[in-house]
């Protein structure tokens, strides 16, 4: 699709943030998300093309402004919801429980 991800040749995307000391993972959630994607792929939730196709359906502004691994979460959720492994309601309930320290 002619989505925002198709970036080759566009102008106006801003300066390159070289950040030479950057760590491989900036936060623990990135570590967990990285591992989850690979395992979900290996476990047959999606093929690599399906994985990328889902990311391409993010809202353009969100795609550009979010952290990289948020793209992976979006795609993982897309496929888990499609195959019935997860629902939005479950995720939100769990988030509420976790933020209350209940789990």
């Amino acid at each position, binding site marked *: 699709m002619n989505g925002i991800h198709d970036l*080759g040749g566009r102008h106006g995307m*801003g300066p390159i*943030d070289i950040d030479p000391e950057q760590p491989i993972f900036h936060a623990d959630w990135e570590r967990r998300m*990285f591992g989850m994607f690979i395992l979900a792929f290996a476990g047959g939730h999606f093929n690599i093309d399906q994985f990328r196709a889902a990311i391409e359906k993010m809202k353009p502004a969100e795609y550009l402004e979010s952290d990289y691994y948020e793209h992976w979460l979006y795609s993982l959720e897309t496929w888990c919801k499609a195959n019935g492994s*997860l629902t939005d309601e479950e995720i939100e309930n769990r*988030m509420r429980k976790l933020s209350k320290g209940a789990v």
Partner: protein
Amino acid sequence: MSKAHEHDNRSDISLRVKAVESLLIEKGLLDPAAIDKLVDAYEHKIGPHNGARVVARAWSDPSYKQRLLKDGTAAIAELGFTGIQGEDMVVVENTSGVHNMVVCTLCSCYPWPTLGLPPNWYKAAPYRSRAVIDPRGVIEEFGLKIPESTEVRVWDSNAELRYLVLPERPAGTEGLDEAALAKLVTRDSMIGVGLPLSPDRGTE
């Protein structure tokens, strides 16, 4: 985005990832120990030091270099660097007349077994958009000026081939063994936004 909104998003995303992970574990779909193993491998073991060894071998052994340029996958496998996001490798050589640079304009494809995980800038919109249309400008932002007489080749990794740049061997390195040569090979020189270190000063 306001700072407050940014903070909300940051703590939100962390919470959401925790939620998703805990749900998948409970449903028997995810093994958290497997995540730990993967993270350990890519945070502590797999990295550009692998690619540096490939480059150092190519610099030291002309017949290895030939094999590397002809069939990158097989030659890199000789050193044991195989696997996820490196299953099909192409190595492109810098010469006095040609400078190579690698990008993935559509997402973030990068040769993990030889370079580890990509830096954020490689995966973000500024690099991905500009690398194909203004490679010289991009390389200059990294501190390197490519002469007009040099041909710049940009490789867009849009399929499942993964690309590695074989930088030119720096002058004054005759007599250095592979281990010493490998120390001069930077990650950025294997992406094509920099050159290897020079031996005398330890700087480019």
